[in-house]
Protein backbone atom coordinates (compact mmCIF):
# COMPACT_ATOMS: atom_id res chain seq x y z
CA UNK A 1 0.00 0.00 0.00
CA UNK A 2 3.06 2.25 -0.06
CA UNK A 3 2.06 3.56 -3.48
CA UNK A 4 -1.01 5.25 -2.02
CA UNK A 5 -0.77 8.61 -0.31
CA UNK A 6 -3.32 11.04 1.03
CA UNK A 7 -3.25 14.36 -0.79
CA UNK A 8 -5.08 17.65 -0.48
CA UNK A 9 -7.78 18.23 2.10
CA UNK A 10 -9.71 15.29 3.45
CA UNK A 11 -9.37 11.76 2.15
CA UNK A 12 -8.10 12.21 -1.39
CA UNK A 13 -5.86 9.27 -2.06
CA UNK A 14 -3.71 9.42 -5.16
CA UNK A 15 -1.91 6.49 -6.58
CA UNK A 16 1.32 6.06 -8.46
CA UNK A 17 0.09 4.83 -11.84
CA UNK A 18 0.65 1.13 -11.78
CA UNK A 19 -0.75 -2.17 -12.88
CA UNK A 20 -4.34 -3.08 -12.30
CA UNK A 21 -4.53 -6.61 -10.94
CA UNK A 22 -7.57 -8.74 -11.67
CA UNK A 23 -7.86 -12.51 -11.73
CA UNK A 24 -4.13 -12.81 -11.07
CA UNK A 25 -3.40 -10.90 -14.25
CA UNK A 26 -1.59 -7.60 -14.46
CA UNK A 27 -2.80 -4.82 -16.72
CA UNK A 28 -0.09 -2.15 -17.02
CA UNK A 29 -1.02 1.56 -17.14
CA UNK A 30 -0.11 2.09 -20.78
CA UNK A 31 -2.54 -0.57 -21.96
CA UNK A 32 -6.18 0.26 -22.71
CA UNK A 33 -8.81 -2.38 -22.04
CA UNK A 34 -12.19 -3.05 -23.58
CA UNK A 35 -14.93 -4.03 -21.14
CA UNK A 36 -17.65 -5.69 -23.20
CA UNK A 37 -21.26 -5.30 -22.09
CA UNK A 38 -23.41 -8.39 -21.70
CA UNK A 39 -26.84 -7.51 -20.37
CA UNK A 40 -28.87 -10.28 -18.81
CA UNK A 41 -31.99 -8.16 -19.13
CA UNK A 42 -34.99 -8.04 -21.43
CA UNK A 43 -35.18 -4.23 -21.41
CA UNK A 44 -31.79 -2.50 -21.57
CA UNK A 45 -31.67 0.67 -23.67
CA UNK A 46 -29.58 -0.61 -26.57
CA UNK A 47 -30.67 -3.71 -28.45
CA UNK A 48 -33.00 -4.75 -25.63
CA UNK A 49 -33.17 -8.46 -24.98
CA UNK A 50 -30.17 -9.24 -27.21
CA UNK A 51 -28.62 -11.48 -24.58
CA UNK A 52 -31.70 -12.19 -22.45
CA UNK A 53 -31.56 -15.81 -23.48
CA UNK A 54 -28.66 -17.46 -21.67
CA UNK A 55 -27.44 -19.44 -24.66
CA UNK A 56 -27.54 -16.28 -26.79
CA UNK A 57 -25.59 -14.50 -24.09
CA UNK A 58 -22.91 -17.19 -24.14
CA UNK A 59 -22.73 -16.99 -27.93
CA UNK A 60 -22.25 -13.25 -27.52
CA UNK A 61 -19.38 -13.90 -25.12
CA UNK A 62 -17.66 -16.14 -27.68
CA UNK A 63 -18.04 -13.39 -30.28
CA UNK A 64 -16.79 -10.49 -28.18
CA UNK A 65 -13.85 -12.43 -26.83
CA UNK A 66 -12.89 -13.09 -30.43
CA UNK A 67 -13.27 -9.37 -31.14
CA UNK A 68 -10.74 -8.51 -28.46
CA UNK A 69 -12.69 -7.95 -25.26
CA UNK A 70 -10.42 -7.85 -22.21
CA UNK A 71 -13.21 -7.89 -19.63
CA UNK A 72 -16.90 -8.74 -19.59
CA UNK A 73 -19.40 -6.63 -17.71
CA UNK A 74 -22.46 -8.68 -16.85
CA UNK A 75 -25.53 -6.83 -15.65
CA UNK A 76 -28.93 -8.05 -14.57
CA UNK A 77 -30.72 -4.76 -13.98
CA UNK A 78 -31.11 -1.87 -16.41
CA UNK A 79 -29.94 1.55 -15.25
CA UNK A 80 -33.17 3.19 -16.27
CA UNK A 81 -36.34 3.06 -14.18
CA UNK A 82 -38.66 0.15 -14.85
CA UNK A 83 -40.24 -2.95 -13.37
CA UNK A 84 -38.60 -3.92 -10.11
CA UNK A 85 -35.86 -6.50 -10.27
CA UNK A 86 -35.57 -8.14 -6.88
CA UNK A 87 -32.29 -9.30 -5.41
CA UNK A 88 -33.32 -12.89 -6.00
CA UNK A 89 -34.22 -12.18 -9.60
CA UNK A 90 -30.98 -10.29 -10.23
CA UNK A 91 -29.03 -13.24 -8.84
CA UNK A 92 -31.04 -15.63 -11.00
CA UNK A 93 -30.27 -13.60 -14.11
CA UNK A 94 -26.58 -13.11 -13.48
CA UNK A 95 -25.04 -15.83 -11.36
CA UNK A 96 -25.69 -19.03 -13.34
CA UNK A 97 -24.51 -17.20 -16.42
CA UNK A 98 -21.26 -16.12 -14.75
CA UNK A 99 -20.73 -19.75 -13.75
CA UNK A 100 -21.08 -20.83 -17.38
CA UNK A 101 -18.74 -18.12 -18.64
CA UNK A 102 -16.20 -18.94 -15.95
CA UNK A 103 -16.29 -22.61 -16.91
CA UNK A 104 -15.76 -21.74 -20.57
CA UNK A 105 -13.11 -19.06 -19.96
CA UNK A 106 -11.05 -19.74 -16.83
CA UNK A 107 -8.82 -16.67 -17.36
CA UNK A 108 -11.34 -14.11 -18.59
CA UNK A 109 -11.88 -11.14 -16.29
CA UNK A 110 -15.56 -10.95 -15.41
CA UNK A 111 -17.13 -7.82 -13.98
CA UNK A 112 -20.62 -7.69 -12.55
CA UNK A 113 -22.66 -4.53 -12.90
CA UNK A 114 -24.57 -4.28 -9.63
CA UNK A 115 -25.21 -1.86 -6.78
CA UNK A 116 -26.38 -4.40 -4.18
CA UNK A 117 -24.12 -6.54 -2.02
CA UNK A 118 -26.17 -9.74 -2.21
CA UNK A 119 -25.84 -10.17 -5.98
CA UNK A 120 -22.24 -8.94 -5.68
CA UNK A 121 -21.48 -11.70 -3.18
CA UNK A 122 -23.20 -14.39 -5.23
CA UNK A 123 -21.34 -13.23 -8.36
CA UNK A 124 -18.00 -13.42 -6.56
CA UNK A 125 -18.81 -16.95 -5.43
CA UNK A 126 -19.50 -17.80 -9.06
CA UNK A 127 -16.12 -16.43 -10.16
CA UNK A 128 -16.52 -12.68 -10.80
CA UNK A 129 -13.39 -10.52 -10.55
CA UNK A 130 -14.67 -6.96 -10.45
CA UNK A 131 -17.69 -5.27 -8.90
CA UNK A 132 -18.89 -2.47 -11.15
CA UNK A 133 -20.80 -0.47 -8.57
CA UNK A 134 -22.33 2.06 -10.94
CA UNK A 135 -24.64 3.76 -8.42
CA UNK A 136 -21.82 5.22 -6.39
CA UNK A 137 -21.79 3.02 -3.29
CA UNK A 138 -25.50 3.24 -2.58
CA UNK A 139 -24.90 0.03 -0.65
CA UNK A 140 -21.61 0.40 1.26
CA UNK A 141 -21.45 -3.35 1.82
CA UNK A 142 -20.45 -3.85 -1.83
CA UNK A 143 -16.95 -2.62 -0.91
CA UNK A 144 -16.87 -5.12 1.95
CA UNK A 145 -17.68 -7.93 -0.48
CA UNK A 146 -14.87 -6.77 -2.77
CA UNK A 147 -12.46 -6.84 0.15
CA UNK A 148 -13.67 -10.23 1.38
CA UNK A 149 -13.25 -11.91 -2.00
CA UNK A 150 -10.11 -10.01 -3.02
CA UNK A 151 -11.78 -8.74 -6.18
CA UNK A 152 -11.77 -5.31 -7.82
CA UNK A 153 -14.14 -2.43 -7.19
CA UNK A 154 -15.32 0.41 -9.42
CA UNK A 155 -15.80 3.65 -7.48
CA UNK A 156 -18.26 5.78 -9.40
CA UNK A 157 -20.10 9.10 -9.25
CA UNK A 158 -23.86 9.47 -9.52
CA UNK A 159 -24.40 12.89 -8.01
CA UNK A 160 -27.47 12.75 -5.83
CA UNK A 161 -29.15 10.11 -7.93
CA UNK A 162 -30.52 6.95 -6.38
CA UNK A 163 -30.29 3.62 -8.23
CA UNK A 164 -32.39 3.36 -11.35
CA UNK A 165 -33.45 6.99 -11.43
CA UNK A 166 -33.13 9.62 -14.11
CA UNK A 167 -31.56 12.97 -13.24
CA UNK A 168 -34.08 15.68 -12.54
CA UNK A 169 -32.60 19.16 -12.90
CA UNK A 170 -29.21 17.93 -11.76
CA UNK A 171 -26.93 20.83 -10.85
CA UNK A 172 -23.30 21.09 -9.79
CA UNK A 173 -21.21 24.13 -8.94
CA UNK A 174 -18.34 22.25 -10.60
CA UNK A 175 -19.28 18.83 -11.89
CA UNK A 176 -15.73 17.67 -12.55
CA UNK A 177 -14.69 18.61 -9.03
CA UNK A 178 -17.77 16.87 -7.64
CA UNK A 179 -16.86 13.72 -9.54
CA UNK A 180 -13.28 13.90 -8.35
CA UNK A 181 -14.32 14.37 -4.72
CA UNK A 182 -16.79 11.53 -4.82
CA UNK A 183 -14.68 8.88 -6.53
CA UNK A 184 -11.65 9.68 -4.38
CA UNK A 185 -13.78 9.49 -1.24
CA UNK A 186 -15.02 6.08 -2.35
CA UNK A 187 -11.49 4.96 -3.22
CA UNK A 188 -10.42 5.95 0.28
CA UNK A 189 -13.34 4.05 1.79
CA UNK A 190 -12.53 1.04 -0.35
CA UNK A 191 -8.96 1.06 0.94
CA UNK A 192 -10.23 1.29 4.50
CA UNK A 193 -12.61 -1.60 3.83
CA UNK A 194 -9.60 -3.65 2.78
CA UNK A 195 -9.76 -3.55 -1.00
CA UNK A 196 -6.22 -3.68 -2.41
CA UNK A 197 -5.05 -0.47 -4.10
CA UNK A 198 -4.22 -2.31 -7.31
CA UNK A 199 -7.82 -3.49 -7.63
CA UNK A 200 -9.55 -0.11 -7.40
CA UNK A 201 -10.93 1.66 -10.49
CA UNK A 202 -12.63 5.06 -10.66
CA UNK A 203 -15.48 5.98 -13.04
CA UNK A 204 -17.15 9.37 -13.59
CA UNK A 205 -20.24 7.44 -14.74
CA UNK A 206 -21.43 9.48 -17.70
CA UNK A 207 -25.19 10.17 -17.65
CA UNK A 208 -25.59 8.92 -14.07
CA UNK A 209 -27.17 11.76 -12.13
CA UNK A 210 -25.90 14.14 -14.82
CA UNK A 211 -27.31 15.93 -17.82
CA UNK A 212 -25.47 15.91 -21.13
CA UNK A 213 -23.64 19.19 -20.46
CA UNK A 214 -22.28 17.62 -17.30
CA UNK A 215 -21.16 14.47 -19.09
CA UNK A 216 -19.37 16.52 -21.75
CA UNK A 217 -17.68 18.65 -19.08
CA UNK A 218 -16.50 15.53 -17.29
CA UNK A 219 -15.16 14.16 -20.57
CA UNK A 220 -13.41 17.44 -21.38
CA UNK A 221 -11.73 17.40 -17.98
CA UNK A 222 -11.05 13.68 -17.74
CA UNK A 223 -7.36 14.44 -17.26
CA UNK A 224 -8.22 15.67 -13.76
CA UNK A 225 -9.38 12.15 -12.98
CA UNK A 226 -6.53 10.33 -14.70
CA UNK A 227 -4.02 12.60 -12.94
CA UNK A 228 -4.94 10.94 -9.66
CA UNK A 229 -3.20 7.78 -10.83
CA UNK A 230 -6.23 5.57 -10.24
CA UNK A 231 -7.23 3.61 -13.35
CA UNK A 232 -10.19 5.38 -14.95
CA UNK A 233 -13.11 3.46 -16.42
CA UNK A 234 -15.06 5.26 -19.08
CA UNK A 235 -18.60 4.12 -19.73
CA UNK A 236 -19.97 6.23 -22.55
CA UNK A 237 -21.16 3.64 -25.04
CA UNK A 238 -24.25 4.84 -26.94
CA UNK A 239 -25.41 6.83 -23.92
CA UNK A 240 -27.91 9.68 -23.99
CA UNK A 241 -25.27 12.42 -23.80
CA UNK A 242 -23.90 11.12 -27.11
CA UNK A 243 -27.39 11.03 -28.56
CA UNK A 244 -28.27 14.51 -27.34
CA UNK A 245 -24.97 15.93 -28.53
CA UNK A 246 -25.52 14.63 -32.04
CA UNK A 247 -29.29 14.49 -32.17
CA UNK A 248 -29.35 10.78 -32.95
CA UNK A 249 -31.03 7.69 -31.58
CA UNK A 250 -29.30 4.75 -29.89
CA UNK A 251 -28.75 2.94 -33.16
CA UNK A 252 -26.77 5.87 -34.57
CA UNK A 253 -24.42 6.63 -31.71
CA UNK A 254 -21.38 4.59 -32.68
CA UNK A 255 -19.39 7.45 -34.22
CA UNK A 256 -20.12 9.69 -31.23
CA UNK A 257 -19.18 6.89 -28.87
CA UNK A 258 -15.88 6.24 -30.64
CA UNK A 259 -15.02 9.95 -30.69
CA UNK A 260 -15.67 10.07 -26.94
CA UNK A 261 -13.60 6.92 -26.52
CA UNK A 262 -10.69 8.44 -28.42
CA UNK A 263 -10.73 11.61 -26.32
CA UNK A 264 -10.93 9.55 -23.13
CA UNK A 265 -8.03 7.35 -24.20
CA UNK A 266 -5.99 10.41 -25.15
CA UNK A 267 -6.62 11.87 -21.70
CA UNK A 268 -5.51 8.64 -20.06
CA UNK A 269 -8.60 6.54 -19.33
CA UNK A 270 -7.72 2.85 -19.23
CA UNK A 271 -10.93 0.81 -19.36
CA UNK A 272 -13.70 1.38 -21.88
CA UNK A 273 -17.10 -0.19 -21.34
CA UNK A 274 -18.50 -0.88 -24.78
CA UNK A 275 -21.29 -2.42 -26.79
CA UNK A 276 -19.23 -2.35 -29.99
CA UNK A 277 -16.13 -4.29 -29.08
CA UNK A 278 -14.24 -4.53 -32.36
CA UNK A 279 -14.75 -0.88 -33.26
CA UNK A 280 -13.79 0.24 -29.77
CA UNK A 281 -10.65 -1.89 -29.86
CA UNK A 282 -9.69 -0.36 -33.22
CA UNK A 283 -10.30 3.18 -31.98
CA UNK A 284 -8.18 2.47 -28.89
CA UNK A 285 -5.42 0.87 -30.97
CA UNK A 286 -5.38 3.98 -33.12
CA UNK A 287 -5.06 6.24 -30.09
CA UNK A 288 -2.37 4.05 -28.55
CA UNK A 289 -0.34 4.29 -31.75
CA UNK A 290 -0.86 8.06 -31.90
CA UNK A 291 0.43 8.17 -28.35
CA UNK A 292 3.40 6.08 -29.44
CA UNK A 293 2.58 3.16 -27.20
CA UNK A 294 1.70 0.60 -29.83
CA UNK A 295 3.59 -0.67 -32.88
CA UNK A 296 1.74 -0.26 -36.16
CA UNK A 297 0.17 -3.40 -37.63
CA UNK A 298 2.17 -3.10 -40.84
CA UNK A 299 4.04 -0.01 -41.99
CA UNK A 300 5.52 0.33 -45.48
CA UNK A 301 4.45 3.75 -46.76
CA UNK A 302 7.60 5.73 -47.50
CA UNK A 303 9.78 3.06 -45.93
CA UNK A 304 10.64 0.88 -48.97
Amino acid at each position, binding site marked *: MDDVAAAGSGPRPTRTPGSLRLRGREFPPERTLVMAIVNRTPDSFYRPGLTWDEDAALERVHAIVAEGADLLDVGGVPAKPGPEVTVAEEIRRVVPFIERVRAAYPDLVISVDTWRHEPARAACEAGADLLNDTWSAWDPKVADVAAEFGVGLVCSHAGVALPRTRPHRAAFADVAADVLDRVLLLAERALQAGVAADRIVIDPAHDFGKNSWHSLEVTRRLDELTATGWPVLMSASRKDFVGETLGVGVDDRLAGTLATTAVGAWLGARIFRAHDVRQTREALDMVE*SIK*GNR*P*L*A*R*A*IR*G*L*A
Partner: protein
Amino acid sequence: MIVRAALCPSPPLLAPGVTGQTVLLPDLRQACAAAVGWLVGAAPDTVAVIGPAAATATWPPESVPDLAMHAPAVYAGPSALPLALAIAGFLLDAAGYSGPRILQSVAESASPGACQQLGRDLAAAAPRVALLVMGDGSARRSAAAPGYLDDRAEPFDATVEQAIREGNLAALAALDPDLARDLLATGRSAWQALAGAAPTCPQTELLYSAAPFGVAYLVATLTPAP
Protein backbone atom coordinates in the same frame (compact mmCIF):
# COMPACT_ATOMS: atom_id res chain seq x y z
CA MET B 1 43.16 -3.27 -50.30
CA ILE B 2 39.68 -4.70 -50.45
CA VAL B 3 39.57 -8.34 -49.35
CA ARG B 4 35.83 -8.75 -49.62
CA ALA B 5 32.90 -6.55 -50.56
CA ALA B 6 29.21 -6.89 -49.87
CA LEU B 7 26.33 -4.99 -51.40
CA CYS B 8 23.10 -4.28 -49.54
CA PRO B 9 20.16 -1.93 -50.03
CA SER B 10 19.20 0.60 -47.37
CA PRO B 11 15.43 0.96 -47.09
CA PRO B 12 14.22 2.12 -43.66
CA LEU B 13 12.12 -1.06 -43.47
CA LEU B 14 15.29 -3.05 -42.72
CA ALA B 15 15.74 -1.34 -39.35
CA PRO B 16 14.29 -3.09 -36.30
CA GLY B 17 10.71 -2.13 -35.46
CA VAL B 18 10.11 0.20 -38.38
CA THR B 19 7.45 -1.94 -40.07
CA GLY B 20 5.53 -2.44 -36.82
CA GLN B 21 4.13 -5.81 -35.87
CA THR B 22 4.71 -7.33 -39.30
CA VAL B 23 8.20 -8.36 -40.35
CA LEU B 24 8.35 -7.53 -44.04
CA LEU B 25 10.64 -9.17 -46.59
CA PRO B 26 12.23 -11.90 -44.45
CA ASP B 27 14.06 -13.18 -47.53
CA LEU B 28 15.73 -9.80 -48.08
CA ARG B 29 16.68 -9.60 -44.41
CA GLN B 30 18.15 -13.09 -44.57
CA ALA B 31 20.16 -12.23 -47.68
CA CYS B 32 21.56 -9.07 -46.05
CA ALA B 33 22.45 -10.99 -42.89
CA ALA B 34 24.21 -13.66 -44.96
CA ALA B 35 26.15 -11.10 -47.00
CA VAL B 36 27.28 -9.06 -43.99
CA GLY B 37 28.10 -12.20 -42.02
CA TRP B 38 30.30 -13.37 -44.87
CA LEU B 39 31.90 -9.93 -45.13
CA VAL B 40 32.96 -9.66 -41.50
CA GLY B 41 34.06 -13.30 -41.57
CA ALA B 42 37.12 -12.20 -43.54
CA ALA B 43 38.82 -11.03 -40.32
CA PRO B 44 39.43 -7.58 -41.82
CA ASP B 45 41.53 -4.82 -40.27
CA THR B 46 38.49 -2.64 -40.67
CA VAL B 47 35.04 -2.61 -42.21
CA ALA B 48 34.55 0.38 -44.44
CA VAL B 49 30.96 1.35 -45.10
CA ILE B 50 30.09 3.53 -48.03
CA GLY B 51 26.59 4.79 -48.68
CA PRO B 52 24.88 7.60 -50.52
CA ALA B 53 23.82 10.76 -48.68
CA ALA B 54 23.28 14.44 -49.35
CA ALA B 55 27.00 15.15 -49.01
CA THR B 56 30.30 13.33 -49.00
CA ALA B 57 31.55 13.06 -45.43
CA THR B 58 33.30 10.82 -42.93
CA TRP B 59 31.19 10.04 -39.86
CA PRO B 60 32.30 9.18 -36.33
CA PRO B 61 32.78 5.40 -36.26
CA GLU B 62 31.11 5.07 -32.85
CA SER B 63 27.85 6.64 -34.14
CA VAL B 64 24.86 4.63 -32.96
CA PRO B 65 22.39 3.75 -35.73
CA ASP B 66 18.99 5.38 -35.16
CA LEU B 67 16.04 6.01 -37.42
CA ALA B 68 14.21 8.72 -35.49
CA MET B 69 13.91 10.76 -38.68
CA HIS B 70 11.90 7.97 -40.28
CA ALA B 71 10.11 6.41 -37.31
CA PRO B 72 9.94 8.94 -34.48
CA ALA B 73 7.91 6.83 -32.07
CA VAL B 74 10.19 3.82 -32.53
CA TYR B 75 13.52 5.62 -32.13
CA ALA B 76 14.43 8.33 -29.66
CA GLY B 77 17.02 10.08 -31.78
CA PRO B 78 18.95 12.12 -32.50
CA SER B 79 19.72 10.45 -35.81
CA ALA B 80 23.45 10.83 -36.03
CA LEU B 81 23.88 9.08 -39.38
CA PRO B 82 22.41 9.29 -42.85
CA LEU B 83 19.95 6.49 -43.65
CA ALA B 84 22.33 4.29 -45.65
CA LEU B 85 25.00 4.36 -42.94
CA ALA B 86 22.43 3.77 -40.20
CA ILE B 87 21.09 0.69 -41.98
CA ALA B 88 24.67 -0.53 -42.40
CA GLY B 89 25.17 -0.01 -38.68
CA PHE B 90 22.15 -2.13 -37.86
CA LEU B 91 23.38 -4.89 -40.19
CA LEU B 92 26.88 -4.87 -38.70
CA ASP B 93 25.50 -4.87 -35.16
CA ALA B 94 23.18 -7.76 -36.03
CA ALA B 95 26.16 -9.66 -37.44
CA GLY B 96 27.93 -9.20 -34.11
CA TYR B 97 30.74 -7.15 -35.65
CA SER B 98 32.45 -4.96 -33.06
CA GLY B 99 35.77 -4.26 -34.80
CA PRO B 100 36.94 -0.98 -36.34
CA ARG B 101 34.58 0.82 -38.72
CA ILE B 102 34.98 3.56 -41.25
CA LEU B 103 31.68 5.28 -42.02
CA GLN B 104 31.85 7.17 -45.30
CA SER B 105 29.02 8.85 -47.14
CA VAL B 106 29.25 9.78 -50.79
CA ALA B 107 27.14 12.56 -52.24
CA GLU B 108 24.32 11.33 -54.45
CA SER B 109 25.39 14.09 -56.84
CA ALA B 110 29.11 13.17 -56.86
CA SER B 111 30.69 12.67 -60.28
CA PRO B 112 31.66 9.12 -61.32
CA GLY B 113 35.32 10.14 -61.15
CA ALA B 114 34.99 11.51 -57.63
CA CYS B 115 33.13 8.36 -56.52
CA GLN B 116 35.83 6.06 -57.88
CA GLN B 117 38.56 8.12 -56.23
CA LEU B 118 36.72 7.86 -52.92
CA GLY B 119 36.60 4.10 -53.41
CA ARG B 120 40.34 3.91 -54.07
CA ASP B 121 40.99 5.96 -50.92
CA LEU B 122 38.89 3.57 -48.85
CA ALA B 123 40.73 0.58 -50.31
CA ALA B 124 44.00 2.15 -49.17
CA ALA B 125 42.78 2.69 -45.61
CA ALA B 126 44.24 -0.62 -44.35
CA PRO B 127 45.92 -3.77 -45.69
CA ARG B 128 42.69 -5.74 -45.25
CA VAL B 129 39.54 -3.70 -45.81
CA ALA B 130 36.08 -5.30 -45.94
CA LEU B 131 33.85 -2.97 -47.93
CA LEU B 132 30.13 -2.73 -47.24
CA VAL B 133 28.43 -0.90 -50.08
CA MET B 134 24.96 0.41 -49.37
CA GLY B 135 22.97 1.17 -52.48
CA ASP B 136 19.46 0.90 -53.86
CA GLY B 137 18.26 0.62 -57.42
CA SER B 138 15.43 2.52 -59.03
CA ALA B 139 12.36 3.50 -56.98
CA ARG B 140 10.31 3.70 -60.18
CA ARG B 141 9.83 0.04 -60.94
CA SER B 142 6.02 -0.16 -60.80
CA ALA B 143 2.91 1.98 -60.75
CA ALA B 144 2.75 1.43 -56.99
CA ALA B 145 6.41 2.44 -56.56
CA PRO B 146 7.28 5.58 -54.59
CA GLY B 147 8.34 7.29 -57.83
CA TYR B 148 5.66 5.71 -60.07
CA LEU B 149 6.54 3.61 -63.09
CA ASP B 150 9.32 4.65 -65.43
CA ASP B 151 9.99 2.29 -68.34
CA ARG B 152 13.71 3.01 -68.16
CA ALA B 153 13.93 1.69 -64.60
CA GLU B 154 13.95 -2.03 -65.30
CA PRO B 155 16.71 -1.93 -67.98
CA PHE B 156 18.77 0.33 -65.71
CA ASP B 157 18.51 -2.10 -62.80
CA ALA B 158 19.18 -5.02 -65.12
CA THR B 159 22.43 -3.37 -66.21
CA VAL B 160 23.50 -3.05 -62.58
CA GLU B 161 22.54 -6.63 -61.81
CA GLN B 162 24.43 -7.97 -64.81
CA ALA B 163 27.54 -5.97 -63.90
CA ILE B 164 27.49 -7.45 -60.39
CA ARG B 165 26.77 -10.95 -61.64
CA GLU B 166 29.69 -10.82 -64.07
CA GLY B 167 32.02 -8.97 -61.73
CA ASN B 168 32.41 -6.38 -64.47
CA LEU B 169 32.44 -3.25 -62.36
CA ALA B 170 33.53 -1.05 -65.22
CA ALA B 171 29.87 -1.19 -66.25
CA LEU B 172 28.98 0.37 -62.89
CA ALA B 173 31.54 3.10 -63.41
CA ALA B 174 29.81 3.91 -66.68
CA LEU B 175 26.33 4.46 -65.16
CA ASP B 176 24.84 7.81 -66.14
CA PRO B 177 24.35 9.99 -63.02
CA ASP B 178 21.52 11.96 -64.62
CA LEU B 179 19.58 8.85 -65.56
CA ALA B 180 20.15 7.37 -62.09
CA ARG B 181 18.85 10.57 -60.51
CA ASP B 182 15.76 10.55 -62.77
CA LEU B 183 15.08 6.95 -61.78
CA LEU B 184 15.58 7.62 -58.05
CA ALA B 185 18.38 5.04 -58.05
CA THR B 186 20.26 6.36 -55.05
CA GLY B 187 22.85 3.57 -55.11
CA ARG B 188 24.66 4.98 -58.15
CA SER B 189 27.34 6.96 -56.31
CA ALA B 190 28.12 4.14 -53.86
CA TRP B 191 28.33 1.55 -56.66
CA GLN B 192 30.76 3.75 -58.53
CA ALA B 193 32.87 4.00 -55.38
CA LEU B 194 32.91 0.21 -55.37
CA ALA B 195 34.04 0.26 -59.00
CA GLY B 196 36.97 2.45 -57.92
CA ALA B 197 37.84 0.35 -54.89
CA ALA B 198 37.69 -3.03 -56.64
CA PRO B 199 37.56 -2.71 -60.43
CA THR B 200 37.43 -6.43 -61.10
CA CYS B 201 35.77 -9.09 -59.00
CA PRO B 202 36.20 -12.57 -60.46
CA GLN B 203 33.97 -14.13 -57.79
CA THR B 204 30.54 -12.73 -57.19
CA GLU B 205 27.33 -14.13 -55.82
CA LEU B 206 23.92 -12.53 -56.17
CA LEU B 207 21.86 -13.30 -53.05
CA TYR B 208 18.80 -11.19 -53.77
CA SER B 209 17.49 -9.14 -56.65
CA ALA B 210 13.90 -7.95 -56.71
CA ALA B 211 11.73 -4.86 -56.42
CA PRO B 212 8.92 -6.01 -54.10
CA PHE B 213 7.61 -2.51 -53.34
CA GLY B 214 8.70 -0.94 -56.62
CA VAL B 215 12.20 -0.19 -55.32
CA ALA B 216 15.02 -2.38 -56.61
CA TYR B 217 17.00 -4.17 -53.93
CA LEU B 218 20.18 -6.03 -54.66
CA VAL B 219 22.25 -8.12 -52.27
CA ALA B 220 25.55 -9.56 -53.39
CA THR B 221 28.97 -10.67 -52.24
CA LEU B 222 32.08 -9.89 -54.26
CA THR B 223 35.68 -11.07 -53.99
CA PRO B 224 38.08 -8.71 -55.77
CA ALA B 225 41.06 -9.87 -57.79
CA PRO B 226 44.12 -9.88 -55.52
